[in-house]
Each structure stands twice: as structure tokens, then as C-alpha cells.
């Protein structure tokens, strides 16, 4: 398989977009990450990651409805593309391969220490 570029934060963002399925836009993604991973996410960092992922073709976006609390600005919804899905799958399988390759004993020893 070809080499895919995916940073840690990018992976988190993509997975969150997947979690939120159909409801993933700026604020919701931010909140989801903050609550699930208990780390703070700035709008800037998130938006840059989203733009980069969109440029790579892992995410696609569509204009959504405008609400009152957004002062009439439209939401921009994101969803994972087929390519994005493949990339996530690839990342996951490579991780799993790595996990599986660690000798059980070694890991156990370390954890118990």
C-alpha cells in the first residue's frame, strides 16, 4: 500500500468526524475532542487540520444551515471520503500489526512494574 501522511492530531480529527457522523462541523468537532480526550483544542489548530485534510482528499465538506447563534453564518459540515476511510483503516491495521508484534510477556512485565 502507498504511503499515507497522517499526523496524530489529524487522525484524532478524522476519527471524531467519523464519530459525529453527519453532525461534524467546527464547533461540534472541537467539543467532541475536548470532552472525549480532555484536551483543549483551539479553533485555529482545528481549522488548519480540517483544511489540510480536505486538501489531501481525506475529508469533504458541504455548506449547512445557518442558525441564529451563528449570526447567520452557515455551518460547514465534514464527512470522511472513501480515501479517508481507507487511510484510517490503514493506520489502524498498521498499529494493530505493531501491537500484535509486541511479545505479550514484555508488555505485561512493563505494565505490572
Amino acid at each position, binding site marked *: 500500500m502507498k504511503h499515507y501522511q497522517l499526523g496524530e492530531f489529524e487522525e484524532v480529527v478524522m476519527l471524531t468526524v467519523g464519530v459525529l457522523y453527519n453532525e461534524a*462541523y*467546527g*464547533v461540534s468537532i*472541537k467539543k467532541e475532542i475536548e470532552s472525549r480526550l480532555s484536551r483543549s483544542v*483551539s*479553533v*485555529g*489548530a482545528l*481549522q*488548519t487540520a480540517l*483544511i*489540510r485534510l480536505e486538501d489531501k482528499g481525506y475529508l469533504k465538506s458541504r*455548506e449547512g444551515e*445557518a*442558525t*441564529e*447563534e*451563528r*449570526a447567520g*453564518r*452557515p*455551518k*460547514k459540515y465534514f464527512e470522511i471520503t472513501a480515501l479517508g476511510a481507507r487511510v484510517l483503516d490503514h493506520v489502524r491495521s498498521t498499529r494493530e500489526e505493531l501491537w500484535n508484534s509486541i511479545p505479550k510477556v514484555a508488555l505485561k512485565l512493563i505494565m505490572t512494574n
Partner: protein
Amino acid sequence: MTTPAPPKLPLRFFRWYCHPKLRDSIEGDLMELYAERRVKHAKWKADLQFVWDVLLLFRKGIIRPTEGYQNLNNYGMLKNYFTIGWRNLAKDKMFSFINIAGLSLGLTCSMLIFLWIRDEYAIDAFHRDIDRIYTVTSVEYSGTEVTGGYDTPGLLAEELGKSIPEVERACSFSWSTFYSFSADDKKVKLNGTFAGPEFFSMFSYPILLGSKETALQSPESIALSRNMATSLFGSPEAAMNKAVRFENQTELKVTAVFEDIGDMASEKFDFLMTWELFLRREPWAKDWHNSGATTFVKLREHTDAAAVSAKIREFIKSYDKEYSSLDRLELGLQPFREKYLHSNFKNGHLDGGRIEYVQLFTVVAIFITLMACINFMNLSTAKSVRRAKEIGVRKVTGAVRGSLILQFMLESLLITTVAVVVSVVLVTAALPQFNAFTGKNIHSPIAELQFWGGLTALAALTALIAGSYPALLLSSFRPIAVLKNNFRNDSSSVAFRKTLVVVQFALAIIFSVGMIVISSQLNFIQNKNLGYQKNNLIYLPMEGYVATHYETFKDEALKLPGVTAITRMNQRPVEMENSTGAVEWEGKAPNTLPNFTHAAVGYDFIKTMQSELLLGRDFDEAFADSTNYLINETAWKIIGYKDPIGAPLTFWGRKGTIIGVVKDFHFNSFHVSIKPLIIRLKRGSQGYALIRTAPDKTHEALAALEKLHQRINPDFLFAHQFADEEYRYMYQREEMVQRLSTGFALVAIFISCLGLLGLVIFTAEQRTKEIGVRKVLGAKSRQIVTLLAGDFLSLVLVAIAIAAPVAYYAMTQWLTGFEYHVSVQWWMLAWAAGGAIAIASATISVHAVKAALANPVKSLRSE
């Protein structure tokens, strides 16, 4: 619930930097977050977080790119203009070539001329206090004659320094001459002169060794150039304080060595000797009634030069015993900076000089650039038909006239820039040749920032001139007419194009006439019978043994093969400058002081010169001729004797008789008329031996002379000169103008032809269908060629009609600068006109024939 408004300033900042594509959605996110936080937190905290978010958003990927969005700037459109411009250039390769070739040639010419002019103005600028240095000018009143010049008495500098407080320094300077010097066994003959002790303090010639104050202090001092010091002693250091023999008789001591004088100085010399020595050698210069030295003064700072000039006007009066209203010398000042370019005198006043050529070439440069611009205008307006649709579409989609003007200006700038780049390459390539033409040493200015600045300005100006008309015309098209396809070039623009072609050809013809007239004048100068035979005449300076034992030398030399006659003369016959008013004769009108040129010669003068005697005889050893005089025809007319032979004549107070009248011969340049001349016999040791050789034996004679010279005069170099070469040298300025005018005329004609070719191609293309129809209906190729060519040839004829009188007038003016000149003949105009017609016809027919021979089926098929 209304949405709470976040702080304005950060929001505006965000809107300003954010990429427009992202702006709305991210702003929405920010608003939503802010609204939420306002509910949870205090306002200040929400505000702070908002600001923080905005700041963190300021990063790559979110900031908009610096180009590419409407409302912000016009980069996109400008980019489009350039793209379209390039495509047009690439599409019409022939047009582009003609345009760029014409423009680059024109720019190359004007750049070269600019470099030349700049170099002319930079001469002498290296002197530090040049704005305070002045040359003393003099006006000599002698009877009714008024002569202006730089000749002043030899003691003037010293007196001016002493008695005029405004004068900080003053120094005398003499004319340059080749002198022989020797040191040990080394001999050189170099050009140099005498100067007053303050010379090096006044001017900024760099001194290598010695001090500028003492260099010319004691009478037996000499300052050498690095070049002369090296050739005599091996190095400047070795030369200091060494002895040098001057003319094999005077021992001088080297007191200073100065750097070789480059091309940027108007006064050049390889050595300077002291003024003391000059006065010792030329005692006449001490007399205040005589003049011959140049005087430079340096005024104190903040001095009014005009006031000083007025003050010294009659300075000589109190020194010169013979000073009278009829015979006097008045002084003035000329800034030294101006001397190089303004050094001609007319009726006692400064009147032009090299500056005339600077002005002439400036005009030429402007005209040539203009011609190239005309090409551009012509071709772009002609091409406008092809661009009409583009303009229509642009207008329909909302282009205003201003933006179309901008578009065409930018296109013009694009082409000019390409042309400028090409011409910089051409200039660099042509510089060595140009330097050889003009006798300059101009370096390529590519490394100079100033040059590029000037170039940018030139490109912008050319683009503006060349682009102005097309831009205005093309932008005025009506979109409906253009898009309906019933657009035609209207008659006014056609008329304008024709006018441009006429102007172009008229200029080219004027240049050509100039070239022909200048060449024929130079030809006239070279071939006119001067009244003596300048070919096969050799000068040898009177030095050493030749001077002391002239008679022996003459006897020996006459025995050599090919030597037919020998005489001596105190100056060179091609340029005789000594003159005096001290001539008396019977019946001379009182209170008149006509100026006579005078020369001192040896026996066999007429024989050697091969000039013609009208009356009487040559100086002859058989007679005691020491107080006898020869005069020329002009002098005879002034003196007015009926029978001059044997009539009395008093010259410089010495009574004598006239023994012969010589037919007038030219002993000065053709710029001035032949002056009255008195020739006397003298045995002096200065001047030249004139040697006449048989026409086909000059080489042999020269070789034999050199051998003889080496044997009898071993201390001196055999420094011979040829009279005809010296003569040519007098007209080197005119020769330079001739070469340049030839070059410019050719360039002008070439540019005009390029323009014409472009128009012919275009017209033929426009009339393709017409030509097709005509051919189908039976027109012959010849008739079609005539049809196409006729239009343009009539333009050339109009150009001739305009150019002929202008050229006639201008060249007649130029010729008045010569006292002896050809007149502008009808055949000179005819040659230029004929040449223009021939070249234009050739240009036109190249394409007209092609158009006429084209198969009509091809041109009509699409109908």
C-alpha cells in the same frame, strides 16, 4: 435571544486576513463559541477567549493568499493582460519580430548615443574643485579684426595671482609638443608641455611620487607620467631625482611622477616642465604685447566669477606699452568645466564646439527612437482588426475604457521590455566597434545601478509613447459594431498610419542626405588641390645634428634615392598659426592693422612644397635673401601694389623687398578662409625639415632617410610625420560624424523598411479576398503587385517631397561651418530619394509578389 456581538476589532482583523472561502464558516464557529461562552462566563473572559482564538487562527492555510481575489486588487486581470499579450506575440511571430527588431535597434542607437554624451560631459569632471577653476579667454582687437581664443601673455598668470585677491591660484600652460628625452642609453619622444608651479595644486592629476607643491618649482624640474618614467628608468621609483636630457641639451631633474592620464582629461601630457624653462626658451612670451600661453585661474570659494571677469577685462592695459584701442587684448573667464565642449570662437565670442555634435546626436537619438515607436504604433493599429473581437468581448463583459487602455499600455511595456533586454545585449556587443568609431573608451555600464534606472525610465517612456495611440484607438471600438463583424478600420486611423509612414521615411531620407553631403564634403577636403602637394611630403623635426648642421644634412639627404627637394619651416604647413599685425608697406591706410600669417622657411621652399609661383622667384642660395619676402595672393590683394616684385615691405620692423607672389594655398583647415601670408627666410634651429620624395619612391626614400638619421643624429629617434596624415588628422571630428551619420542613416532606413514591410503584410492579408476575386476575374499577378505597391510608393514620394527641402536647409547650414565647401546638389537629394524608393520597392515587392501569386482558390474557399 439575540446573538451577542463579539469585540469588533479582532473580528475585523479576522475578516481582513481570513481566506474568503473559509471566512463565513469559521466566523460562524467563532460566533457560536462566543455565544456559548457568554452564557457560561463573564463577558471579559469570553472576549479574551475570542481574541485568543482569532490570534491562533492567524496561520498558514487560513490567511488568504496575497493575490487572486476580487475587490482586493487587480493582479488577476493584470496577469491575464500579460498572458494575452504573450499569446499575441507568439501568435504573430512576424509582427513581433518586426516590432521588437525595430524597437531594439532604435533603443540600441539611442543608448549608444546616450553613453557617448555622458562620456563627453564627464570629461574633466575628476578635478576636485572644477567649479572654481576657470580658463582665461582673450579677445584680440587688431584694427577691424576681432579674434577670440585662449591665447594670453606668458606672465599673466603670475600677475593675476599677485594682484587680484579673488584669485586663489593661477598657472600658465603651454601647447603640447613632441619632444625628445634621453636618460642613459634610453630615448623617448613623447607629447607634453610646460606649466606654472601651481599646476598640480590646481588640478587633480594624481601624483605618485614627489609633492604637488614642489614638482614644478625649480626651473630644471620635470614631472613624468608613469608611462614615461617606466620607459626611461624601468619604474616610477627609479626615476625620482634622476637626470633627464631634454632635446639633448638641457639637463633636467625628475621631481615628480604622476599617474598616466586617461581618457577623462581634456589636457593630456606625458611630462610637464617648468614655466621658467618655457620663458627661457621662448623669450617673446615675456612681452605683454605677445600672447600664446593659456592661463588657468582658481578662484576663492564663494567668488562671483562674472565680477572677476569684468575686473580683469582690461588687466593688460597697465602692463602692455603698445596697448591701444586699435591693438589690444581683452580678458574674460570661462568655467574650465565648459572648455572641452565649448571651445570655438566666432567674432571674439565663444560659439559652440563639440557641444554642437552632442546636440546633433541627441536630436538623432530622439528621432531614431521615435521612428521605432512609429513602427510599433503602425503595426498595432493595423493589427487592431484582429483584436477587435477580443476588445468587443472584453467590453461586453464589463471592461471600462481605462482598463483597456491599461491593457494595451501593458502590452506595449511588455514588448518594450523585451526590446530593452535585446538592446542591452546589442549595446554590449557593439561597444568595441562604437569606441573605435568615436575614438572613445566607454566601458559597458551593465554593472551600474544608475544605468538600469535610466534604462527603466527609457523603457517606460518608450512604452508610453509607442503604446499611447494604439491604446486610445483600440479602446474606443464600439462593442456592437465589432461583434456584429462589420468592423472596418476607419479612414482616420488609416490616414494616421499613412502619416506615420511618411514621417518615418522623411526622417530616413533626411539622414541619408546628411550622410551623402558629409561624405562628399570630406571627399572634397581630401581631394581638393590645396595649392601645394600634400602627398609624398615628409616632416622631420629639427633636432640635434639636423638642427645644428642643417646644410650638411640637406646635402647628404638630397643624394639619397627618391628625395627630390628639401626645405625647412618653423611650423607645419597644414596648420600655420603664427600671425602678426606688425607689417608696413607704402600706401598702407593709417589706423588699420590687418593680420598676416607668417612663416619662416629655408631655401627651395616653393620647390619642395610644389606650390605655384604667380610672380617672381623662390628663395635661392644665389641671392642674399635674408630680408626678402614671399607673399601669397591674398596678401598681395591687401597690400595692393600694382607691381609687387621688388616693392618694399616692412615686417616686424625689418625693411625688405617682395621677391615673389605665391598662388594661395591652404595652410589651415577648410573651416577658415585663406589668410594673407608672408614668408621670410630664416636660419632658426626650430621647426621641421620638409622633405619631398618622388611619388613612387617614398618607401625607399624613407628607409634611406632613417639610415642617414641614425648615422648623423644617433641621440634622437627618427620621428617623421607625413603631411597627408597630419592633414587627415585635422578632420577627424568630421570623419567621426561621417561614420556615425552613415550608421544612423542605415539604421533609420532599416527601421522604416521594417515598418513598411509590416504594413504591406497586413494590407495583403486584409485584401486576400479582394486579390482572390481579382485573380478569378482575370487580373494578372503583375497588376496585383502594382496595386499593392502603388499605395505605399506614393507615401514614399510624399516623404521625399517633405524631406528634400528640410534636408537641403539643414545640410546647407552645416556646410556654412566650412569656408570652403561643396554645395548641396540636386543629385545628392536624388540619390537619397532614389535609394529610398528602391529599398521601399524591394521591401514591398517581397510580400506583394507572394500575395499576388497565391492561389485564389485558397483565399476564396471559405466564403
